[in-house]
């Protein structure tokens, strides 16, 4: 797909390369880098450049590298031929030099490499990127690279062509944006976004075009051969707002969700709208002024809407298609992620083929399929899609910006017209502000929570122009528009001005204006539950007060979605697990498990897991077996237990009951999967923020998962090996240290917990979060309630020495059949926080709320990870103490 980059190759590259090769050893360092850069840049020149020019430019390389110069001189004669392969063969060559054979893909690959290296260099300097946005820096790198090419060739041999840009670079960026769109947020603010994206864009285009035309009439720009229609065309291309730079800044400072989605959604849809508008005006320009009458204008308007909505529709259709397809890709999991990309791209091309809006098509395709494919596909595939989506998008974004910079270094396009350029800049800024403020003023009359003044300023200021504008400008037809170069040049200046200057000042501005930040979301069950309750409440209130409002619509849609869309598009197995509250529950459980492991590591061992498990297992076994285990109807039983406040907290019992059962029934292998599944599943409902360059939303979770799995596995390995007197592998030690570093925050909270405990625990009014609080309590109780010395060696290490864990536990165990009052209260939160994981497992087994097919793996995973090889640790203690 990169072929286009390198349609016209410079033969001189061959020379450079060949000459360079034998002498490489002589002057490695800088020359190598320089040459590679040069070659790549020159090699990537796109169509349209005269090969002669480039050939003639080979002399320029002299200045840069004497070695190459020699080589150039000596080999110049062979350049016309296509490498050695063409030369008459006298003997059989053992190896031959076939540069021509690989030139095209080679240069594409090199070019990508160079762009990404730029990014690497940039991202290595955090203190710079925190001040100057990455996109701006990439453009600057582009300047440098372009300068090198210019110095070498005396002409810009590379330009970003519309074909490459629109067919090979843009789609993945947009698909990524659509796919990672926070849907709920988007649709909640859809009205505002659409108003800004459609009306705002039209306003920007029209106002800029008309004003420039007016200024020309007034004689502000000298003698230009641009008519009103051309101005409007120019205005429409200048209306394309680029999200990249703003979003990057927004992510750094975490602006509030509404502002985020307004800017992001607007700039995304706006790209599509702009292209449509551009095409309409382009058609008008082709048609010529005199032929345009009312009918044509109406056709233009109709076509605008048809193209926009038709494109969206195509996207929706393809989105549904992907969703349907992923229902049945169970047997080809390895390539199922590919479908999303292929079909996404096809939706783009199909829309393009039907002359509908390709950008809107791929946006909606991504948005539409995200929920269903995430539910349908294997968890690994979902991750793959995420990562490769980001990789593609990020990669091509990098290339786009570097190319944007390179494009600047070209004498041909620099047609200076102070009036035109400055006025354009001015109008672009001013009209953006006017448009945003006016539209927001209207919107605010209907919005529940009005957009604040500060938000509006940021929205206006966030109107950066990017590659889409440039791509459209280059698409202009020189035959129809005489001043094309001026327009390209102006577009570039506007792009540079907005991306670099506004990009740099955006962050200070956001800080200075004290834009409302997004609250750091700490999931808490109560919050989630209340949230859900609010939704229901609002619907009810709308019912009562007799208005069909937003909430009403949403609940209707949800109903439809759950009953029809999900039914058709989701696997039956995936359909069942979509509850948000439940998901949060999973997440919290996962977190607990993590903390648990970390805690174990902090204390140097997970020994306490084993101890506790075994202990509780006993208890349960000895006590509850009679009435619990054999009880067919588990759920009823437990319900009864909890309501009657059975002396033994049901939660903990259940879990260990299950563990025991699994062990007993030799289902140990299966026991783990559920945990695993749930861990992953929770991510599905996580609200994603769009991030172009980072993956941080899911990073946390993913990290958690990975860490969890890996540590568990390693730990378990080390248990067994330690048990058998084998020294644990070294990697484990390393891992542990890393873990501890990572977990600093938690470690802190632990310390806090301890101090607060020693002081006044109840008054620990730390507003931080329910979670921290509960965690503190957990640790405190770990010591106090269960008196498991192994769990709290830090508090008083002596305990560990004096009483072996099993002894302490067994004492406790044997001394009371029911736990002490304190212990009872504490039990559900006691050291083995893991216990709370139990109900999940139970559910799979006890009822059919999860499909049966999941159960086997579920349990398998469970025992793999959580349960330290259950049978071995248990029996000895069993014998000894029960």
């Amino acid at each position: 797909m990169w072929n286009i980059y390198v349609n016209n190759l410079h033969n001189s590259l061959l020379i450079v390369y060949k000459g360079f090769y034998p002498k490489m050893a002589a002057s490695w360092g800088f020359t190598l880098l320089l040459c590679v850069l040069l070659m790549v840049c020159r090699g990537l020149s796109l169509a349209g450049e005269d090969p002669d020019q480039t050939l003639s430019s080979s002399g320029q390389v002299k200045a840069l590298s004497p070695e190459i110069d020699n080589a150039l001189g000596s080999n110049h004669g062979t350049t016309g031929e296509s490498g050695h392969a063409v030369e008459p063969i006298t003997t059989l060559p053992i190896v031959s030099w076939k540069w021509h054979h690989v030139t095209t893909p080679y240069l594409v690959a090199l070019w990508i490499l160079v762009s990404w290296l730029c990014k690497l260099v940039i991202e290595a300097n955090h203190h710079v990127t925190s001040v100057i946005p990455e996109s701006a820096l990439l453009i600057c790198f582009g300047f440098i690279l372009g300068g090198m090419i210019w110095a070498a060739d005396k002409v810009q041999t590379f330009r970003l062509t519309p074909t490459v840009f629109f067919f090979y670079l843009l789609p993945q960026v947009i698909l990524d944006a659509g796919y990672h769109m926070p849907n709920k947020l988007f649709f909640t603010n859809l009205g505002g976004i659409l108003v800004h994206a459609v009306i705002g864009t039209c306003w920007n285009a029209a106002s800029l075009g008309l004003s420039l035309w007016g200024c020309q009439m007034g004689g502000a720009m000298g003698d230009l051969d641009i008519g009103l229609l051309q101005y409007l065309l120019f205005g429409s291309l200048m209306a394309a707002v680029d999200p990249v730079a703003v979003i990057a800044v927004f992510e750094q400072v975490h602006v509030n969700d509404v502002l985020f989605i307004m800017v992001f959604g607007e700039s995304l849809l706006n790209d599509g709208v702009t292209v449509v508008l551009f095409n309409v005006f382009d058609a008008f320009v082709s048609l010529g002024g005199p032929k345009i009458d009312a009918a044509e204008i109406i056709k233009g308007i109709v076509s605008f809407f048809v193209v926009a909505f038709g494109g969206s529709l195509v996207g929706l259709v393809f989105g549904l298609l992907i969703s349907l397809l992923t229902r049945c890709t169970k047997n080809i999991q390895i390539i199922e992620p590919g479908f999303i990309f292929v079909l996404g791209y096809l939706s783009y091309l199909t829309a393009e083929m039907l002359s509908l809006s390709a950008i809107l098509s791929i946006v909606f395709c991504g948005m539409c399929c995200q929920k269903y494919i995430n539910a349908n596909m294997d968890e690994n595939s979902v991750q793959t899609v995420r990562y490769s989506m980001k990789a593609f998008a990020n990669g091509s974004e990098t290339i786009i910006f570097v190319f944007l910079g390179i494009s600047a270094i070209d004498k041909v396009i620099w047609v200076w017209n102070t009036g035109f350029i400055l006025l354009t800049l001015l109008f672009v800024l001013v009209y953006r502000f006017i448009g945003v403020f006016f539209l927001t003023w209207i919107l605010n009359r209907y919005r529940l929570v009005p957009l604040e003044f500060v938000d509006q300023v940021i929205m206006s200021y966030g109107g950066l122009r990017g590659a889409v504008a440039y791509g459209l400008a280059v698409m202009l037809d020189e035959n129809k528009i005489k001043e094309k170069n001026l327009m390209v040049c102006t577009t570039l200046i506007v792009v540079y001005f907005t991306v670099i200057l506004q990009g740099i000042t955006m962050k200070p501005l956001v800080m200075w204006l004290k834009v409302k930040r997004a609250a750091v979301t700490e999931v808490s069950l109560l919050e989630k539950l209340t949230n859900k309750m609010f939704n229901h409440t609002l619907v009810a209130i709308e019912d009562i007060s007799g208005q069909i409002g937003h909430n009403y619509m949403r609940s209707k849609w949800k109903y439809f979605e759950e009953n029809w869309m999900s039914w058709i598009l989701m696997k039956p197995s995936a359909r069942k697990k979509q509850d948000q509250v439940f998901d949060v529950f999973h997440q919290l459980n996962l977190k607990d498990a993590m903390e648990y492991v970390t805690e174990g590591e902090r204390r140097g061992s997970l020994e306490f897991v084993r101890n506790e498990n075994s202990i509780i297992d006993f208890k349960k076994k000895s006590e509850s077996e009679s009435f619990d285990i054999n009880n067919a109807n588990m759920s009823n039983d437990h319900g009864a237990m909890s309501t009657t406040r059975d002396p033994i907290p049901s939660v903990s019992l259940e879990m260990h009951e299950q563990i025991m059962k699994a062990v007993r029934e030799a289902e140990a292998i299966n026991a783990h999967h559920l945990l695993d599944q749930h861990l992953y599943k929770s991510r599905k409902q996580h609200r994603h923020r769009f991030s172009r360059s980072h993956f941080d939303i899911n990073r946390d979770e993913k990290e958690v998962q990975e860490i969890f799995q890996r540590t568990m596995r390693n730990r378990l390995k080390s248990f067994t090996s330690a048990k058998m007197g084998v020294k644990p592998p070294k990697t484990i030690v390393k891992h542990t240290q890393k873990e501890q570093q990572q977990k600093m925050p938690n470690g802190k909270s632990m310390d806090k917990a301890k101090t607060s405990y020693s002081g006044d625990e109840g008054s620990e009014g730390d507003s931080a979060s329910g979670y921290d609080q509960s965690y503190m309590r957990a640790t405190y109780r770990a010591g106090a309630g269960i008196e498991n010395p192994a769990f709290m060696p830090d508090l008083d290490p002596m305990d560990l020495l004096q009483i072996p864990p099993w002894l302490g536990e067994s004492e406790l165990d044997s001394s009371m059949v029911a736990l002490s009052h304190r212990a009872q209260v504490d039990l559900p939160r006691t050291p083995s926080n893991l216990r709370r994981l139990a109900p999940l497992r139970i559910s799979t087994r006890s009822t059919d709320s999860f499909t049966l097919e999941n159960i086997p793996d579920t349990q398998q995973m469970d025992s793999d990870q959580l349960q330290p090889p259950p049978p071995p640790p248990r029996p000895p203690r069993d014998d000894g103490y029960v």
Partner: protein
Amino acid sequence: MGSSSSSRNKIPNAQELMHQTGFSSAHLLRLHDRFESLDRDNRGYLSPDDFEVLGGLAMNPIGGRIIEAFFSSGQDTVDFSSFVRILAHFRPTDRNRNKEGTQQELPSSRTRKLKFAFQLYDLDRDGKISREELLQVLRAMLGLQVTEEQLQSIAERAIQEADLDKDDAISFDEFKKSLEKMDIDTKMSVSFLK
């Protein structure tokens, strides 16, 4: 204007209501229309039956609770002014007015909204959300997807998250604290039609 002022006269102590709830007179008028259409027998008050005929409410998992909230004072009727006062909880929070620090708190203030939500949980009105009460809400809202054990452990967990004084129940202060970060203004607001 003549018609509106005449119908405004129909509303008892409209001025006071507007003052207390922050509704505009247009809002009041509209709500009064709605009230009358709900009150099919023109009795001047609503009974729970009047709410239950609303189709949407019947399908709402916590519809019953919401209806109860209208009859919180123990009576089984609600007149127009109580009706409006309850609905006023769902007005968007009036920033400007709160800033002035005038008179008493409007029902649309954050605390009052929270209190309302709290009461939806707190069935027995003892000022605490017990585990059992939480379970009932959960049961109502999670439906069939989740099993009873899971519900219980969720309830357990939720209580522990919020329960600062460890009495195994969530008091209003704890409730408020645990929802501190939540954007109540947005989430508990309906844009009332004018």
